[in-house]
């Protein structure tokens, strides 16, 4: 399973990441960070859909997203 | 100092260029303006031969900012101009003072305000000694009076610039720049080409911590701290103030004049001495720091003062500040646009003497 990590203290809630995700799994959470921004997240139930494409990280102006990719195993997940 | 025996007959402008070369100046950034053009002309080939670089900039603004860059990189560099161009250089000079970048700047003062003329004048004294740009700062300023002194002080200017991380100004005028005199050139020993090794931007080779040369201090208390630091540096220069005193020991009247006017006044003093009149000359060599202590000493000895300048009265403020608790100074202006002769100075000096 590929995944992203959002550094919540760096996220400014601009939501640009939500516009580029090809599988549409990034949303604004209900949490505020210390700077008062409502941070982006991938809800638990959608996590497994992440393809590790890194588009979200590419457009994030705050380098707040780290991307891990897991190569697909033979015979599916 | 290894004195070379030869004598050469050159203009003040060329003496400054050769002095810079002797001081191992490696970059020169120029822009044409009369009466300093001999300096960039000389440097355009001399810098390349010296293994350095020369740029004719698009403006005095750009030339001074190139100087800021080369100085920040820790390289001995220089620019030169004349009065209207100096107004444009003040931006970068203020930044250099604020971010403590060493550099040498030459002003061959011409008549003003505005375009003025291309003849000699001393109208830029305030600009040269008060920090000519924005903000609270000063820079070291030399006021050479002869072609030899122009050569010598240019070499000194580079040392002061790097020792104190400050822009240093050499303030001459059209007389000094255009006048030819025989001089003895010399080469300073032990010039450190890497004097900026501990602070200059040079790349983080070897993974050292990054360096930042800046004059922006936004955090609370930071700018006050920087200004305090700068002020302490300026205060420490007091002991470096220099002057020439000629026949002041028994003088009743001391003429205060700098640069070319100091030299013309010296001729007048010589003439009066031949007539037995007790006149002397006090010629500041550093205009900032101003040699106030030496002047005050003369005031304490009961001497009177007449300041003569090629402007409407600027250095006279510094003279009066130096002697203010004891006496005052008379003032005689030579208007820009006129070329004074020793004869012309006789009448005001005589009037002062007799007004005892």
């Amino acid at each position: 399973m590929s995944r992203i990590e959002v550094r919540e203290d760096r996220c400014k809630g601009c939501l640009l990441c939500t516009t580029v995700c090809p599988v549409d799994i990034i949303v604004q959470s209900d949490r505020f960070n210390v700077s008062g921004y409502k941070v982006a997240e991938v809800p638990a139930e959608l996590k497994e859909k992440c393809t590790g494409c890194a588009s979200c990280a590419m457009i994030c102006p705050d380098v707040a997203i780290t991307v891990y990719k897991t190569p697909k195993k033979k015979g599916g997940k | 100092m290894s004195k070379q025996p030869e004598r050469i007959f050159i203009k003040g402008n060329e003496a400054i260029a050769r002095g810079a070369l002797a001081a191992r100046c490696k970059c020169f950034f120029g822009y044409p303006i009369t009466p300093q053009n001999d300096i960039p002309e000389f440097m355009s080939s001399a810098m390349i031969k010296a293994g350095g670089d020369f740029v004719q900039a698009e403006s005095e603004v750009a030339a001074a900012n190139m100087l800021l860059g080369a100085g920040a990189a820790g390289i001995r560099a220089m620019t030169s101009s004349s009065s209207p161009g100096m107004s444009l250089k003040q931006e970068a000079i203020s930044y250099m003072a604020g971010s403590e970048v060493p550099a040498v700047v030459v002003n061959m003062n011409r008549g003003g305000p505005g375009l003025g003329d291309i003849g000699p004048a001393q109208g830029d004294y305030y600009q040269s000694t008060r920090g000519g740009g924005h903000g609270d700062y000063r820079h070291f300023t030399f006021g050479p009076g002869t072609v030899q002194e122009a050569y010598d002080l240019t070499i000194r200017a580079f040392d002061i610039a790097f020792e104190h991380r400050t822009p240093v100004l050499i303030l001459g005028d059209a007389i000094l720049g255009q006048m030819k005199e025989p001089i003895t050139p010399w080469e300073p020993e032990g010039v450190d080409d890497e004097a900026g090794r501990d602070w200059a931007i040079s790349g983080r080779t070897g993974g050292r911590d990054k360096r930042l040369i800046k004059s922006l201090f936004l955090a609370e208390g930071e700018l006050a701290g920087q200004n305090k630091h700068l002020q302490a540096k300026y205060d420490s220069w007091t002991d470096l103030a220099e002057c020439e005193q000629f026949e002041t020991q028994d003088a009743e009247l001391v003429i205060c004049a700098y640069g070319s006017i100091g030299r013309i006044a010296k001729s007048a003093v010589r003439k009066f001495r031949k007539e037995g009149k007790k006149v002397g000359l006090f010629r500041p060599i550093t205009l900032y720091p101003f040699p106030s202590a030496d002047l005050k000493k003369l005031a304490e000895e009961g001497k009177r003062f007449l300041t003569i300048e090629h402007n409407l009265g600027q250095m006279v403020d510094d003279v009066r500040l130096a002697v203010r608790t004891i006496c005052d100074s008379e003032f005689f202006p030579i208007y820009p646009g006129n070329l004074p002769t020793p004869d012309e100075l006789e009448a005001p000096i005589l009037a002062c003497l007799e007004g005892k």
Partner: protein
Amino acid sequence: MTEMNEKLVFDKPESVIDRATHYCPGCHHGIAHRLVGELLDEMQLTEKSLLIGSIGCSVFLYNYLNVDAVEAPHGRAPAVGTGVKRARPDNFVFTYQGDGDLASIGMAEIMHAANRGEKISVVFVNNTVYGMTGGQMAPTTLIGQKTTTSPAGRCVAHEGAPIRMAEIIASLGGVAYAARGSLDCVKNIRAAKKHIKKAFECQVNATGFGFVELLSGCPTNWKMTPVQANERIQKEMIPYFPLGVFKDISEEGGIC
């Protein structure tokens, strides 16, 4: 759950300092910084780099990139860069300037540094507005765009037309590379990185002056959400400021 065979495919570049930026949400300076940082790492230029900072929101870039830096007065970065490069020709020297800085007050310095073919690289962030001072009209402000000093919208008859810098720079003799990219979408960000890389290579290979303009969003001063700002780049900016390479001497057989 962390799997053992997962690979880190995107992380902060090493030359970008790990700290929060002062930029507003959705501001593209952060993207431009990151691209520059990635290239400094990939091209192994970090230790050789000397950054010439400029005035505007980008003034604090020196806090975000782990390289030696000097702060230039408003618009003078190409002149300061000239001095630095002439003094230290073996170092990698680049400026990073906004549109007010480069295309207005610094027009003389950028034109002449480019024309002299200074071996420096220039990253030019065009967001059509003076950001740090609060949203005044810039030389790149679009026709009809409302700013705090063009409240009725920029009008050609009164304020002139927006300046297209990449095209102007491309027309100058000493320029080795001039291009315009955009930071509004992933595809354009990837292309922008290639442009910056080419511009940097011009300095590394000593072929001449390298210039990259980056169309960027300023949601705060455009009074838009970051998402709306990115849409504006597509709909309004790119049609006026076309993307692409305007000069590349490596495609022309070199500069004489």
